[in-house]
Structure formats: structure tokens, C-alpha cells
């Protein structure tokens, strides 16, 4: 042991945890890097269209390519061409610029709604499992009632109550998603609740809140993260259905889900109207899934590989003790004194 060596200074003990460390660890996984790249591109697109829309009133995209809102009846269902790489829709609007603009709503709906479901589900599931008894009964029965009603119908009810707006769409879809997350989290937390480290934390006298969010939730969150990345696509498409019914995204704001459902009817004459938004949704979902996979691995500290330290004992000290023990008492014949024909370590024999 280093004994009274240099007392380790504080700089060595800073917490390297946090987002940055997690992200730097992601570099070892090509899949999640690709996922991160996709999402980064989508976010850039969304940011660009948001800035362009609200600050410059679509001036930049019009200058670059075409105004996503500009209708041109003469160009109805035009084939993809140099001028319109993704063709045009029913009103002759350029699909490419609409697809770019659609990223804004699709991505926000996905991230915000899934975020609400995720946080709500994790808290409800973990609390439910940890406290058990009546708390569990009440929370889980409430969640099951939510589960029993089809998601779309429930979202419509919420929208009817809150009024149709894009923000209420986020909240409605967020609430609709909670049950699935809560159930996954609860089943995970139930198995973790009885682990020895949770009992150790109880015996340490830590408050229940700390035990819940430091011992239980981090260890059970991996399947919930996977659930979140998988449901991203469903939420984007589901929100489209609401928009289609008149709730949520209002025309002419472009939205992939809405474009997809609009284009469905014209599938035979103009495949491009549905296919390109569909591909974008697919890419988004894939991006999140790939990132989710990577995140799950990275969040598991077992992925960091540092060799087990093994040189932390002092042979000389041990020998000293051993010698003392053998001279004091006549120990069993298994002390290292018996040796073949008295040959000891032969130094200088080999080099």
C-alpha cells in the first residue's frame, strides 16, 4: 500500500459524472454515434426552420429553395424533378421545403410528449413500487384506467378539455404515454427494491427520497429508456392523427404526420407525397433507437473497463508476519519450508 505517500489532492476526486462524460463515452459505439448524428441533423433542421419561420418569415428557405406555404395549383402532384426534388403536394407546395419545416413540429412533439410520459411514468412507477400497499394500489389502478381507454380517444378528450393548440397536444400525448412507462418502471423497481444495496441504504438512515432516486431509479431506468426511443415514432404518427382530426397542428403549418396522412389518399398517383415524410419519421425513430441503445450501454458503469487493481499488498510485511508466526509456533507442515532437495531460488543461474 502506498501508505503515507502523497495524500491524494482534491483535484483527483472531482466527480466526472454528468452528461459530458456520458457523451464522451458514446464515442466507443458506432451505432449510437450514428444515432446521435441523425438526431443532431434533425435538430439543426428544426432549429433552422423555427428561426426562419418566426424571425425571417420564411425568407431564408424561400431564397434557398422554395416557400413551404406557397401554393401553386398548376404544379399539383408534380413528379420529383430538379426544381422540386421531392415533388409537390395536392396544392402544389414544394415537398422538400415542407419536409424540412415539418421537422420542427414532429421533433418537438416527439421530444416533449415523450419527455412528459417518461418523467411522469418513472416517478409514478418508482414511487408505486417503493411504497407499495395503498399508494401502489391507488397509483397503479389510476394508471390502469388511463390504459384502458384507447390513446387516441383519450388525447381527443384532453384536447377537447384544454382546447385545440399545439401545446395542449404535447401535454395530451404526454399523459397518454404515462401508463406504459409507469408499468415498466414499476416492475423494474419491484425487483430492485429488495436488493441488498437498497437495504444497506435503508440501514444507513438515508431519506426515502434519496433511496428512491439514487438507488432504485438509476438501476431500473434502462428498459424505460428503450421504451421511450421505441415509442417516439408512434407519438409522431399519433399526433398526426390528431392534427388530421383538427386538433393540434393547424394548417398550413407543415408536419410529417399530417403530410403522411394527407398523402395516403394519393398514394397511387403521387407516391412521393407520403413516402418522403414517412422516410423522415423512419429516420427519426431509427436515430432515437440507435442513440437509446448506446445510452443504455453507456449508462451502465460496467462498460468502463479498468483492470482490477491487484498489487495492493505488501509482500515484505507479509513475509515478516509469516516468519514471526513460524518461529513462534510449530505450524503445520504446509509452511514454505519444505522444499525439493533444499534448492532455493538460484540467482545468477539464468539471465
Amino acid at each position: 500500500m502506498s501508505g503515507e505517500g502523497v495524500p491524494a489532492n482534491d483535484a483527483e476526486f472531482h466527480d466526472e459524472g454528468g452528461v459530458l462524460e456520458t457523451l464522451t463515452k458514446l464515442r466507443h459505439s458506432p451505432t449510437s454515434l450514428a444515432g446521435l448524428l441523425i438526431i443532431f441533423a434533425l435538430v439543426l433542421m428544426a432549429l433552422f426552420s423555427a428561426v426562419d419561420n418566426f424571425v425571417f418569415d420564411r425568407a431564408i428557405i424561400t431564397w434557398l429553395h422554395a416557400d413551404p406555404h406557397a401554393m401553386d395549383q398548376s404544379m399539383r402532384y408534380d413528379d420529383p424533378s430538379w426544381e422540386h426534388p421531392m415533388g409537390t403536394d395536392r396544392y402544389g407546395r414544394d415537398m422538400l421545403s415542407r419536409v424540412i419545416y415539418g421537422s420542427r413540429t414532429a421533433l418537438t412533439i416527439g421530444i416533449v410528449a415523450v419527455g412528459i410520459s417518461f418523467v411522469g411514468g418513472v416517478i409514478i412507477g418508482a414511487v408505486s413500487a417503493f411504497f407499495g400497499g395503498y399508494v401502489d394500489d391507488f397509483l397503479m389502478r389510476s394508471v390502469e384506467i388511463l390504459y384502458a381507454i384507447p390513446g387516441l380517444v383519450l388525447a381527443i378528450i384532453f384536447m377537447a378539455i384544454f382546447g385545440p393548440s399545439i401545446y395542449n397536444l404535447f401535454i395530451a400525448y404526454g399523459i397518454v404515454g404515462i401508463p406504459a412507462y409507469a408499468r415498466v418502471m414499476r416492475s423494474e423497481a419491484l425487483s430492485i427494491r429488495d436488493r441488498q444495496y437498497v437495504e444497506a441504504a435503508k440501514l444507513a438512515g438515508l431519506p426515502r427520497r434519496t433511496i428512491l432516486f439514487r438507488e432504485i431509479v438509476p438501476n431500473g431506468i434502462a428498459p424505460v429508456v428503450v421504451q421511450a426511443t421505441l415509442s417516439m415514432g408512434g407519438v409522431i404518427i399519433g399526433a398526426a392523427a390528431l392534427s388530421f382530426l383538427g386538433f393540434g397542428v393547424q394548417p398550413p403549418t407543415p408536419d410529417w404526420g399530417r403530410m403522411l396522412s394527407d398523402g395516403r389518399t394519393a398514394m397511387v398517383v403521387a407516391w412521393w407525397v407520403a413516402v418522403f415524410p414517412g422516410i423522415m419519421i423512419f429516420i427519426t425513430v431509427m436515430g432515437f433507437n440507435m442513440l437509446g441503445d448506446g445510452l443504455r450501454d453507456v449508462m451502465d458503469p460496467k462498460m468502463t473497463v479498468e483492470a482490477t487493481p491487484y498489487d495492493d499488498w505488501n509482500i515484505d510485511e507479509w513475509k515478516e508476519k509469516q516468519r514471526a508466526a513460524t518461529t513462534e509456533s510449530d505450524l503445520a507442515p504446509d509452511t514454505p519450508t519444505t522444499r525439493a532437495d533444499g534448492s532455493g531460488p538460484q540467482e545468477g543461474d539464468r539471465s
Partner: protein
Amino acid sequence: MSLLEVENLRTYFFTPAGIVQAVDGVSFEVDAGESLGIVGESGAGKSVAVKSIMGLIRDPGRIVEGSVRFDGRELTELSEAELRREIRGNEISIVFQDAMSALNPVFTVGSQLEEVIVENTDRSPSAARERAIELLDDVGIPNPDRRIDEYPHQYSGGMQQRAMIAMALACDPRLIIADEPTTALDVTIQAGILELFDEIQETHDTSIVYVTHDLGVVREVCDRVSVMYLGRVVESAPYEELYRYPKHPYTQSLLNSVVTPDEILDEINPIGGTMPSAVSPPSGCRFRTRCPEAVEECVHVTPRARQVGDSHTAACLLYDESNSHEEPTLREITNQTND
């Protein structure tokens, strides 16, 4: 000729973290009717060594070098199908530590046993049932004709292990490999299983390779013992010889640190430290990082097994008169297998 001859066996696992040299040049042999104990701490590679014999190494693991000859046949060259058809179950069978997970919970013990019998012999199903009852009786399960129709969860832990042993005996194998079969059991139950192994060896004249970390268990079951440390055999000897005259410093320290209920020791002085990782084992002698006798050469020279007594070998420079050995480097070995 010995029944089983393992020579210079190397089994490596190619993981993202590096190459785990789990078994690195292990040799031992087992005569017909003999029982060999393989002793070592966890991580010594003893389980991997015996699984390599049966061809049970899965990706990312691979036998990169060495030979396993069973009754003169080279097992490492057999295909998976040949191993399954000709070796596993009928020539060599294996008993694992965790009987509960080795038995399928949705079938009765009897049906699983009968399946093994029908699969590996030409008995009819009804004859197989008779044989199954006989086997359960052999391994000491009370009322076998009734208990054969029970499910694994109705058996206690000790009885599950007995049922596993019955399964291993089903086709009269010539060699039984037991991989820590009693580690999960209470000592009172373990005592019965150990007696059963003794009995099997006597009545069936079966060879046994018994893997364990407990020297007390070895003493009960085994004639000879090989001590493993970090993927290598450091010492081999008949059990009594090993206990009374341990040569290798590791064996000595292992014997020194055993606590038994029969001795009054005020202070045990066990060897310190822990076994290094098999990803980056120490050069030369692998025990040198913890060895009280280590000298400068131990860093550079890999000791080979040397005769130190009557059928007693130890791999330590203390007993090695010859000069330096040429050991293939890791790169050479892995390149070889990639060809």
C-alpha cells in the same frame, strides 16, 4: 494410455476489453477409474478448462491451441454435431453447479431423464422409464417410482443435484465432469453428494474430473489434484502428497489460508492481494505478483511443470534447473488461429 489427455490447452475469450487468456497452456491427464480434482480460486480458469474438454466454449471464446484426447480421439477436431452425437452424454457427461437452472421447470424430472436415455441409447420409452427409476434409486432419491413424476421445484436443492447426477449417469459415461456441483448446497447436503460421487466411482468405475475451490471437498472425492492459478496448472500431485508436501508457493499459501473447524488457529496469515486480470496477466510466472519467493527471473521466465516427486509436478523456478524457455507470444498464438 490415459483416458483423457489434455495437452497445452489454451482457451481465450476475444472481448472488446481485450483478450481474456482464461486457460493458457493447461495440461493434465485422467486415467480410467481415476478421479482428478481441479482446484483454484474463482477466475483461475478451471471451469473454462473443463468446458473446453466438452466443446462447450461459446463465442467470443475459442480454443486457440492445444489438444484434448479422449480415449485416443482428438476432441478439438470434432464438429459440434459429432461431439453431441458421440461424446456428450454417452462418453463424457457434465454436472453443473446450479441444478435448478439446468433442469427444465415445466417437465417432470422423469421425462427429462427418459429423454436423455432414449436420445443416447436404443432403449424403448418404457425401458427408459424403468432405467430412469433405477438411476434415481442409485443416486439416493427416496421413493423413486413416485418421485419420478414430480417437477424439479418439488425437489429440494440436494435432490435436484442428485437428479442431475442421475442424468449424467444415464448413459454410463466413462468420464463425469463435475463443475462445483456442491458449492450452492448446505454442508449437510454436500456430505451426502460427496459420498455419492465416491460410490459412483467405485461401483461404475467412472473417471471423474471434479472442479472445486474447496480443498476439503477434493480430499473426499479425488485421488489426484491439479492446482490452477490464472489459467495455468501450477502443481499436480496425488492428494495426500500435495497436502503434506506442497511445493509451489501458491499451493502452500492456499493450504495456509484454509480455515477448518477442526483446528484451533489464533491467526491465519493468508496471502494478500487478489488474482490479476486474465486480460493482462503478469509476464513470466503469473503468481509472481503475490509470491513470497519471487525473484527477478520470475518476471522473464515462464516456469514449466517439473518433476518434484513421485508423480508430483510443480511449475516454479524454485524447482527448475533448465534454462530459459521459449514461450510463444500472445500475438503468435492468435495469428496462428486466424490463419
